[in-house]
């Protein structure tokens, strides 16, 4: 949860009772006052684990908030159930009001469904459409130019080379394509086969512009995907109205956090226990600021997710989460054979060729280390293996002792990034660095 290592260390120090007074909790929140350079009022909402603190730090959650959660985890008996102090009640009321405002906004949107857009709205949409089309035209020329002059010349280009083109796409109201261009900047020289990787990614952008200019020829669901990839984002309330609602017992399998040039991106993978539907929650926050919602992993809860409209959509958001979280203990619903997983990937790619991340659940597999080459694999009972991303997996190997386990990971087409694994009825979250 900590925004950086410094806050994490400071938070651990404050996980000591001697810094705290007036600790308490009720069904909604947890609170206390922490003596730092001043007396800070700290509270945490239990449902979302969102933290509020009166300290002036711009980093969120701050060290005081982490300290409060650490005390709750390590010495729960020290926090007694009590009546809510006024300052905590004020915060809870404000949060409630914000939720109500959001619900009202959605309700008003729902009311407008089916109504014709106003003339002004139509004009804005047409203007944006024209900007995107002209931006894509310029982009296609740029892409063709790169291939005409040769990718060899890109080896020494600075990051600004890519940023300049990305900025043009932002101006052209296509932030999705801009973000794909920014991702290209880290490919040159990053691996021995970087020209092939760069060419493939440039090709995917070309395929996207190709699809966008022929949008009406595509399946309606794929049209939604293409619009989203170009950058015509939907507001949350639009997703709620137009997206697919799925109710299930959701297993929160793990998170992958990536630091980008513009902030921190976090992907949380969930799996529906009954529907076996993979769900991906994307979150982004500028550096040093906490994510607006904490999603605890390794747990299962009943609830309703809404999926963004699209083909075999996995991007989703939590609409309803019942207060019934339990730890993941039972076998994961997945396949025992890697071949089946690869077939599933092929099927998804056949419908949505830009998909580059897949949830991989493999049951009764083993973790394998090959000292020649320092490679790690997940091996199924047929002896087939998928490589794990380079990393240190000695702790999972020590826990498994060569025994079979249920594995959850993210497949990126080349390697698996572990999310967690279930062994002897305990779900272990893969640590950072694994």
């Amino acid at each position, binding site marked *: 949860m900590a925004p950086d290592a410094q806050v994490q260390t400071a938070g651990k120090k404050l996980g000591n009772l001697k810094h705290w007074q007036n600790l308490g909790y009720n069904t909604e929140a947890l609170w206390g006052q922490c003596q730092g350079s001043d007396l800070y009022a700290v509270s945490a909402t239990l449902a979302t684990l969102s933290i509020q603190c009166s300290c002036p730090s711009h980093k969120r959650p701050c060290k005081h908030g982490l300290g409060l959660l650490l005390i709750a985890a390590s010495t729960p008996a020290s926090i007694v159930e009590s009546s809510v102090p006024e300052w905590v009640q004020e915060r809870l009321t404000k949060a409630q009001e914000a939720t109500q405002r959001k619900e009202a906004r959605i309700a008003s949107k729902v009311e407008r469904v089916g109504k014709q857009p106003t003339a002004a709205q139509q004009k804005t949409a047409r203007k944006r459409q024209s900007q995107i089309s002209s931006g894509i035209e310029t982009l*296609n020329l740029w*892409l*063709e*130019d790169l*291939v*005409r*002059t*040769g*990718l*060899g*010349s890109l080896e020494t280009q600075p990051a600004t080379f890519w940023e300049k083109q990305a900025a043009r796409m932002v101006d052209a109201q296509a932030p999705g394509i801009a973000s794909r261009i920014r991702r290209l900047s880290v490919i040159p020289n990053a691996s021995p086969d970087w*020209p*092939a990787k760069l*060419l*493939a990614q*440039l*090709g*995917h952008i*070309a*395929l996207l512009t*190709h699809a966008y200019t022929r949008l009406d020829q595509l399946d309606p669901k794929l049209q939604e995907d293409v619009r989203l990839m170009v950058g015509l984002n939907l507001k949350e309330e639009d997703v709620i109205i137009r997206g697919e609602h799925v109710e299930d017992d959701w297993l929160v399998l793990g998170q992958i956090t990536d630091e980008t040039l513009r902030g921190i991106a976090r992907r949380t993978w969930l799996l529906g226990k009954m529907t076996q539907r993979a769900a991906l929650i994307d979150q982004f926050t500028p550096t040093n600021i906490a994510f607006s919602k904490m999603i605890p992993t390794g747990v299962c809860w009943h609830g309703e997710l809404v999926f963004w409209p699209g083909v075999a959509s996995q991007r989703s958001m939590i609409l309803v989460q019942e207060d019934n979280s339990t730890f993941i203990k039972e076998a994961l619903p997945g396949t025992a054979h*890697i*071949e089946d997983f*690869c077939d599933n*990937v*092929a099927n998804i*790619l*056949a419908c949505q*060729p830009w998909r580059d991340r897949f949830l991989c659940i493999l049951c009764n597999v*083993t973790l*394998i*280390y*090959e*000292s020649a080459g320092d490679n790690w*694999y997940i*091996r*199924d009972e047929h*002896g*087939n*293996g*998928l*490589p794990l991303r380079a990393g*240190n997996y*000695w*702790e999972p*190997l*020590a*826990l498994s*002792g*060569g*025994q079979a386990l249920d594995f959850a990971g993210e497949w990126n*087409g080349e390697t698996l990034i572990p999310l967690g694994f279930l062994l002897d009825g305990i779900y272990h979250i893969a640590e950072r660095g694994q």
Partner: protein
Amino acid sequence: MMDELVKLAIVGTAQQSNQQLQSGTTLDTLLEQCTEASLERKLLLLSSFQAIYQGAGYTARPELVAMPEAAPEQTRTCSGNIAALLRSMLDGKNGAWLEQALLMLQERHLRLPFDLLPKVLDYGKKHPEARALIDTLLGERGRWLSRYNPAWQWVQEYAQEQEAATQPVSEKTWQDGSNTERQELLSRQREADPDKARIWLAETWSQEKADTRARLLKTFKINQSQADIPFLEQVLNGDRSESVRFVAAQLLAALPASQVAQSITDYANRVVEYQPGTSFKKSYFTIHSQPISIGNDNLASILEKLALDLRTVLALIPPQHWVERFAASPGELIKATEDHDLQIEIITGWAQAALTYQATEWIASLLDWYASTLKFLPDQPEQALLASLPQEQQEQYILRFVAQSEYMNRCIPLVALLPAPWSESFSEQCLQYLKAYSADIYEQKLDGSTWNGLLRQACIALHPSCFDAALEPWPLPAKQVWNATYWKNQLDAFQEMIALRKQFHEEIDR
């Protein structure tokens, strides 16, 4: 095909505009639909098709060999709370107490939890002195795991060493082994059965080369006894190699009943003179002014080569010899060295002799002398003398210094010698002193780093009965000075470690 596309893209289509783009797969039909596209656009689209095609056709790596499963454990593991405390220590928080914590696990016949094994194996790689302890805590899983990581090879090596040490010494290896193996074997035989080792060497003596003879003879330092004298004297008087004779002379010098040791004693008698109740004369103890003159020329030449200095001569002679010769107690003799130019040499020589011959009366008297001197004495055997005493006596000796500010700097390295945990009474007195000091910390003459040094030792060695007293609020002066935060932080770190130890003690027996 992808390689061809990449080559073309790297060079650029401007250089090879006549290229035909074909993959030879069904992808070509897709490309045919893009009739109006330029060569560059076709190249980009085909690259995208190809990448998707490859992603969809990914095949797993076949025929991976499974790792064998680890054997079931025979011992139980520690609790989750203990594991969490150990993990924080392995991550560096309060790591100074880690080995004692591991020792507590060993005493209770517990093994390490599986998830901590990689960190502990890494710790063993960096700290060879902890390997014996760690080895007992690894369990089946730890041994299994260590086989797969070259960095943890030490586990197998340690097991092999232990196995070799418990194997009976084989005479066959003594006959057929390499020089290193034979030397190692003879050392082990000296430890197990010194007489048999001597017989082995005597039997092969005439067939050995000179440098091998010298090397093998050096193993006689292990378990030296009077029984070695005839063999060593035979070597001293009859061996062809001077280097071998030199090794024999060194060994004989340390055996009081040997002719060499007798000669050294005779020689020392001539250079040391003392009248009870007086001080040693300045003219005595000047060893180099008196040439060695012994009837046996061979022995004299060897002794010359030993280049014996005063300290070595005194270290070789049992200290009781001086008590008997001068009819004076060790304390009187030590006192008689006062004001002698060579006092430190004499005391050091006697101290080494007292340790070699375990002369307890001398050890006590020498420590009294060390305790009474404020001189800074580098490389002195005070610490070795102290370490030879039982812990209770060591603590009593150190308590002489605690709370005497002028002695405190000397006290810290001595405290470090004490086995942990300290006794209850020693812990109480140290804690009392530390608290009294902190109450008046800014007025103390003593350098604060010394207080801090004792505090750091105390946090890992304080007796468990003092935990509650140590965790009570400490009296710190109200006066605020520039380094007040530093002292408070030191105290916080001390109390944090004590709290951890307290929690560990409570948890491990729960």
